[in-house]
């Protein structure tokens, strides 16, 4: 009988908290969106599944050895840990109170030395870091996974259309207004007292408007790790929604005649130009914005491997096997941040709302910039390709192409839209560098 009771106390059903149950549901919803609705399935499947794993009660997959020991260790171990942390536990209080005291000590107040000692105690009695926690530490907290993905994106990107028409870089720059307007929106919401975002958190939220998953994850792992789960989910969910968010804005801001503008054929770009471009970009980054060099450095490296044509095996690995492996690890690690305490908060709703606004403003700014350039120069630019300035490669370019075809079935804008599209990737990485420089 005694054993049965112990088994029951150790079961998931007994220990499941309401928050965990809700988060498991959130994980299932993400899986549903990914599998049934095809929303960025490559990322939302691992993220959703990671979210479910992270919320299995008592399993502690997403927490460190120390936290795990505090949650489930025997009283003797708790006393040992308390002495390592330089505190004593009140013998009259119950186990639950002891655990709460230890948790508070670990979260704030303990010195690094004490933390290390307590961690040693936990490891000695056999507690280990959870699987997802390890993934998170290795892949995301170190910044490595988003950077490797960025290298893969570089290896997949063709800068030809951009080199043939460099002015489209301005469209990519204009679309980054979404990032900064959202940052200001988040700060404004905090000033009004609706939410409580710090400047760092606002910056990390704003970067959702860059429509670039790895950049968003990188920036929030540097500036606001506590919001990483919500930001990554918002970024990928809205990237999947680009075909629904953008067209109404595009149609609202352009006349039918503007949508029918045909653009001049792009000139062919020589191989040498494509090889020199990543190096030139890298030099500019080195000269003006070293803080963007992790992101743009890896991006240029990937692109150089692609264009130089002598390391095809490396290019192949970077854009296939490696990026796939890292995507799995990154997705699970992001999923591990979907824990009830941090995700089930009003802030998450705020982030979702702001992310949507960020996309909309970025799209609008790109289109308006294209219209402005049309007024200023002779070479015609179809304003629709401005919307592709929010990165989201290649989805945004496809949307521009599709909306263009609706107005004029013979007007293929895809290649023209790829220019601002990849410019948007550079633009959002530059914006990320500025934010990290200013706040990091």
């Amino acid at each position: 009988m005694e054993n049965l009771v112990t088994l029951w106390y150790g079961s998931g059903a007994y220990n499941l908290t309401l928050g965990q149950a809700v988060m498991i549901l959130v994980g299932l919803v993400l899986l549903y969106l990914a599998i049934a609705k095809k929303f960025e399935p490559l990322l939302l499947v691992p993220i959703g599944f990671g979210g479910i794993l992270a919320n299995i009660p008592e399993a502690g997959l997403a927490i460190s050895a120390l936290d795990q020991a505090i949650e489930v260790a025997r009283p003797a171990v708790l006393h040992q840990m308390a002495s390592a942390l330089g505190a004593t536990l009140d013998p009259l209080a119950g186990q639950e109170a002891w655990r709460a005291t230890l948790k508070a000590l670990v979260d704030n107040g303990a010195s690094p030395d004490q933390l290390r000692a307590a961690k040693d105690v936990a490891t000695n009695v056999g507690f280990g870091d959870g699987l997802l926690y390890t993934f998170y530490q290795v892949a995301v907290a170190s910044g490595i996974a988003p950077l490797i993905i960025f290298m893969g994106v570089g290896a997949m990107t063709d800068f030809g259309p951009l080199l043939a028409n460099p002015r489209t870089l301005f469209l990519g720059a204009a679309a980054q207004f979404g990032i900064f307007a959202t940052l200001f929106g988040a700060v404004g919401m905090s000033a009004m007292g609706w939410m409580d975002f710090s400047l760092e958190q606002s910056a990390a939220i704003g970067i959702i408007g860059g429509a670039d998953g790895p950049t968003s994850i990188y920036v929030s792992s540097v500036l606001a790790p506590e919001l990483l789960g919500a930001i990554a989910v918002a970024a990928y969910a809205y990237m999947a929604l680009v075909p629904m968010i953008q067209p109404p804005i595009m149609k609202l801001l352009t006349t039918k005649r503007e949508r029918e503008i045909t653009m001049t054929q792009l000139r062919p770009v020589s191989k040498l130009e494509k090889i020199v471009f990543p190096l030139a970009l890298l030099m500019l980054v080195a000269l003006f914005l070293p803080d963007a060099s992790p992101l743009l450095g890896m991006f240029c490296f990937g692109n150089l491997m692609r264009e130089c044509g002598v390391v095809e095996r490396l290019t192949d690995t970077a854009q296939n096997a490696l990026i796939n492996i890292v995507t799995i690890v990154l997705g699970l690690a992001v999923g591990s941040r979907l824990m009830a305490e941090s995700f089930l908060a009003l802030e998450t709703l705020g982030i979702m709302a702001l992310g949507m606004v960020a996309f909309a403003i970025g799209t609008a700014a790109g289109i308006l910039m294209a219209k402005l350039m049309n007024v200023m120069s002779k070479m015609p630019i179809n304003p629709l390709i401005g919307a592709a300035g929010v990165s989201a490669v290649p989805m945004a370019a496809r949307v521009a192409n599709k909306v263009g075809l609706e107005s004029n079935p013979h007007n293929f804008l895809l290649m023209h839209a790829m220019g601002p599209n990849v410019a948007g990737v550079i633009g959002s990485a530059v914006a990320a560098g500025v934010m990290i420089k200013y706040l990091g």
Partner: protein
Amino acid sequence: MRDFELLEEGLALMGLGMGFVFVFLTVLVITVTLMSLLLRRFAPAPVESAASGVARPAPPAQQDEEVMAVIGVALHRYRQRHRR
């Protein structure tokens, strides 16, 4: 009061960030344009002329006619099937 400072700082970051993104990409536009001009002047792409001049012998006329016939039949069938 703190709220006001936060707003002010947000506005500053917005101006600075947007300004920097524009300046950086403008410099990039200039660099890329110059680079393309220089490269095209001093190392004109030999690949294209070779590709258009030598590497593409005219396809035999007979095969051409055959292909045209096949396409014609396919078009005809398609139109018959998808008559509106």
